[in-house]
């Protein structure tokens, strides 16, 4: 299909979606940490947050009070630092009052998502990460349809270990199959908690469900990320966990996920 030369996504090398059938498993967390890791590998990254009802991304970078400007090419994304190596777009920046509920039915959500995909002037990016709400509905259908001409790299599916979560993520895998979205791999988040006082490991949300699902579905397993209070704290405060806490328990797994994505992307490029 014809891609206008001046399309706002023309300068984006790789697009990947972060999905889950299940809510609260860590999609926004993984999106954020992946962006930070890729940035530390010298990449330019954008995050498009299409969760219109519960936009988490702005606060996770401590830019929740930023505003969006328009230029000739469209909407200017919000940069998280002077380096301009990470840029964001979210409905969170567009609300007058942050506590106002966005009570929209599907058609209105779809219209904004189409605008988000077409009108944000990202410039040149190595990666555009699309953070999604849970489910397989309007936001997901519209996002995949709008991105199709730009051939997304694929999707990362996030789950927690327990069966109730995996049960929903199985359905998300079907969504990927039906929409032709390649699954880059599954992340098992909140996989075990190591007590900072005595180092005892407790599997609060069970263990192994994500890995089993990857095996069963024949998709790559990207790794287990443990529960890490320092990670939760960083997200609360909008801090760069990857830069500030390389010795924390979640760091190795998060770094490994980023490495696998980088490897996959360079293979795809060559």
């Amino acid at each position, binding site marked *: 299909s014809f891609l206008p030369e001046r399309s706002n996504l023309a300068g984006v090398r790789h697009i990947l979606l972060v999905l889950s059938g*299940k*809510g*609260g*498993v860590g999609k*926004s967390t993984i999106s954020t940490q992946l962006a930070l890791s890729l940035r530390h590998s010298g990449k330019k990254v954008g995050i498009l947050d299409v969760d219109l*009802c519960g936009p*988490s991304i702005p*606060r*996770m970078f401590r830019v929740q009070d930023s505003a*969006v*400007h*328009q*230029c000739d090419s469209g909407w200017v994304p919000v940069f998280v630092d002077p380096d301009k190596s990470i840029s964001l777009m979210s*409905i969170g920046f*567009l*609300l*007058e009052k*942050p*506590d*106002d*509920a*966005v*009570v*929209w*039915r*599907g*058609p*209105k*959500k*779809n219209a904004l998502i189409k605008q988000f995909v077409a009108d944000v002037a990202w410039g040149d990016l190595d990666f555009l990460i699309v953070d999604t709400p*849970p*489910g*397989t*509905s*309007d936001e997901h*259908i519209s996002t995949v349809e709008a991105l199709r001409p730009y051939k997304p790299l694929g999707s990362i599916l996030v789950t*927690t270990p*327990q*069966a*109730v979560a995996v*049960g*929903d993520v*199985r*359905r*998300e895998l*079907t*969504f990927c199959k*039906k929409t032709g979205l390649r699954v880059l791999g599954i992340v098992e988040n909140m996989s075990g*908690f190591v*007590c*900072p*006082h*005595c180092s*005892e490991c*407790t599997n*609060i949300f*069970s263990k192994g469900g994500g890995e089993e699902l990857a095996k069963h579905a024949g998709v790559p397993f990207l790794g287990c990320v443990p529960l890490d209070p320092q990670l*939760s704290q960083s*997200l*609360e405060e909008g801090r760069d966990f990857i830069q500030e806490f390389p010795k924390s328990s979640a760091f190795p797994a998060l770094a490994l996920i980023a490495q696998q994505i980088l490897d996959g992307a360079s293979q795809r490029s060559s």
Partner: protein
Amino acid sequence: LLVLCLPLSVADCPGTNSAQAGRAAACQGCPNQRLCATGGAAPDPAEAAELRERLRSVKHTILVLSGKGGVGKSTFSALLAHGLAADEAKQVALLDIDICGPSIPKMMGLEGEQVHQSGSGWSPVYVEENLGVMSVGFLLSSPDDAVIWRGPKKNGLIKQFLRDVDWGEIDYLIVDTPPGTSDEHLSIVQYLSATHIDGAVIITTPQEVSLQDVRKEINFCQKVKLPVIGVVENMSGFICPRCKNESQIFPPTTGGAEKMCQNLNVSLLGKVPLDPQIGKSCDKGQSFLSEAPESPATASYKNIIQRIQEYCDQQHFHEEKIR
């Protein structure tokens, strides 16, 4: 030249059956505007009457909501259902309107069950004689089946759940919802206006990332005039089973649900700590309250359930007085 974007109008969909449908300020730019303005989306008054008739025999209705996903709505809905059904004299119904991610069948030990139709409608699936359940999960033939539906189709199924399920006489109808403030939430409030909703129980976890979404949900309740029974703070601390030290895995950096409830003038119904047994019981389809009666989490849940029951009883009492 950079121009500041004006704040987005989050003026809401007035509802397809409202007099303002298609005409309100919020309708500008909505792809459905013309359909609504020409009355194409208005509900059939006969349908509204049908719903009213079907829901006539429901005494109390409780919605379980959260702006945030994964905080424990379904877990709580299941335990609330079990807790209320412990009184065998009460008839309890649990309706799962999470169409894309239906967790209730697994949590209630009903995975693989199918819905049967009879002359009087769809039969709920019974866990106990006095506890019936309905979910889209029962309509799917495989655990891999995805329900990839846009809003209008989801709304249609929710209406069917209310109109076509033969619930019988119910003391408590509990409605478990997906996260957010969208089609499912607008529709359930709209359709249940045919009966009386006692109120909403809102679930959160302690950290600001959750609270920022939950404040929106409370705002939603205010917008649609849905009373808030109170807020439950789930995953509130973890006590290591070995050394007994507490860790705040989801830290209440902005004061947790307690501070939010104070600020918004809503009740905090209780706080429930993390307990690995909760997830295990859910996965097994067993009631955590029965499996781990000694857990501090069980005590918290039972307390909260009692407060909800008291709230509902007061509602009933006030209604009786008015009559």
